[in-house]
């Protein structure tokens, strides 16, 4: 795996693509060269009151220009600060961090929920096999158009305003989607549903998890999840989401 670096990088663009959701393009240089789908970058705030970096998954990587795209939702003071970033400004980042998706399988189901959708875009791009893409939203959709060139896109919305009414599993069932590998990212209840679905249908699944982080590089043990096997690092049933993850095989973790 590549070594993450910390540096100030230039904002190329930062635009609102949906109520409270922003599209940030960064001139990441080396960081982009080393990055793979499912990895993340941690962004530092400029305000000294907020010290910890904010982990944001990589949405798209352009290895030719060294540019990286991130898509984030404003949920607190840090992301609110990011929303104010202007073209040409610098932001401190560390990355790429973590272990991303392993590209495998012949028939893939890519499943994303809400703000868990962005990291799947680069995956959809790089994954060369047959693939169906299922995106779940509460109501308004975003980023779904970007996926269309990489596979057939199925949508679920809670209110039924677009696609299947219900959640991503409902959309999978409604469309009789089959797969030998699942890639998923989204809120924990969704990931639980996906893990269960994959288990009962005997499909291998890779899930991308989230936890509060401090160091982002595996040193502080803030970001663990329960693992089925003892972890090599501390010999207990805890894996570090920032280091062994954020992407895990569903069988390896307890949700």
């Amino acid at each position: 795996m590549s070594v993450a670096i910390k540096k100030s990088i230039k904002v190329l663009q930062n635009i609102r693509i949906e109520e409270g959701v922003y599209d940030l393009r960064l001139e990441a240089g080396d960081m982009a060269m080393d990055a793979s789908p499912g990895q993340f970058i941690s962004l530092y705030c400029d305000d000294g009151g907020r010290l910890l970096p904010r982990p944001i998954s990589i949405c798209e990587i352009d290895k030719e220009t060294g540019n990286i795209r991130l898509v984030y939702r404003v949920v607190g003071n840090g992301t609110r600060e990011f929303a104010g970033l202007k073209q040409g400004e610098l932001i401190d980042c560390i990355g790429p961090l973590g272990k991303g998706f392993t590209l495998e399988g012949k028939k893939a189901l890519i499943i994303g929920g809400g703000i868990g959708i962005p990291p799947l875009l680069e995956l959809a791009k790089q994954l060369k096999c047959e693939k169906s893409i299922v995106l779940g939203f509460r109501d308004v959709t975003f980023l779904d158009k970007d996926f269309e060139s990489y596979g057939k896109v199925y949508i679920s919305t809670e209110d039924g305003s677009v696609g299947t009414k219900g959640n991503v599993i409902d959309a999978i069932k409604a469309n009789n989607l089959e797969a030998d590998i699942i890639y998923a990212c989204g809120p924990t209840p969704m990931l639980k549903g996906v893990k269960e679905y994959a288990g009962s249908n005997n499909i291998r699944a890779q899930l991308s998890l989230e936890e509060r982080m401090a160091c982002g590089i595996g040193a502080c043990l803030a970001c663990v999840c329960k693992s089925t096997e003892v972890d090599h690092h501390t010999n207990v049933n805890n894996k570090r989401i920032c280091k062994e993850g954020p992407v895990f095989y569903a069988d390896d973790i307890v949700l």
Partner: protein
Amino acid sequence: MKDNNIKGNNEINKDICMKVNIAGIEFKNPVTTASGTFGSGMEYSDYVDLSRLGAVTTKGVSITAWYGNPTPRIAETYGGMLNAIGLQNPGVDVFIQRDLPFLKTYDTKIIVNVVGKTAKEYCQVVDRLSDCDVDMLEINISCPNVKEGGIAFGQDPKRVEEITSLVKSHSRKPIIIKLSPNVTDIATIAKAAEAGGADAISLINTLTGMKIDIERRTFLLANKIGGLSGPAIKPIAVRMVYQAANAVKIPIIGMGGIMEACDALEFIMAGATMVAVGTANFINPRATEEVIEGIEDYMVRNNIKDVNDLIACVR
């Protein structure tokens, strides 16, 4: 081999002495890492040349593997953070087999942070480490995040003295007692550690704190209470180091909110022989090295030849 090599290039070039001495051990400079914020050094070795550090202080090591607390284990606070990791660690055997050999490939001193649920467990770890090639042991009697052991030992002068002399009687390595700041009178606690035979004291561990998620109306940490660290606590830490330095003769390792060299210098001037960089590593992985360079620059700028001349210089 290692000891002959202690003068790094920087020091020779700048013609200043950064060496400090604690309990007969010579450190190439007064900067170490704060336990638990630097793993066992491995993760940060991509960012920092560990051989540049005065010492690496490891994450707390217990006799058997500890699971730690449920998540969320951390919460950000204004100018700081709360943690309730709960001392997750693989136990002393894995430490000795895996982490220690890794650390030995670097030219730095090794301080192992020791934790236990009972006095006996502390002694067991100390016994195991006494035969190993480590330089000092830091006895953590101040962790606020575990139900048993930890802070319970560190808030009462009588128990501090007892555990210190017990551990000291087991240890063939010099011992540092790591003190809790969650006490009425740090001077009394420092004196108790000294009376128990501590070779040095380190302070401060984290201050206990709490954060409430007002939207979900719950505690932010699964453990409810956690330990506060980072620049927010520095004034309290500097005050305690000053008070402890006035109370005892043994050397002090100062920490709590050191982000840059100027912070480290406050601790040294208040009476610390060494300083440890903790939370700052999470914000800047190169923080330790930058603190060392910054102290050197300060000394060159102010024409100070020996860092020992700065220790406790403000009285």
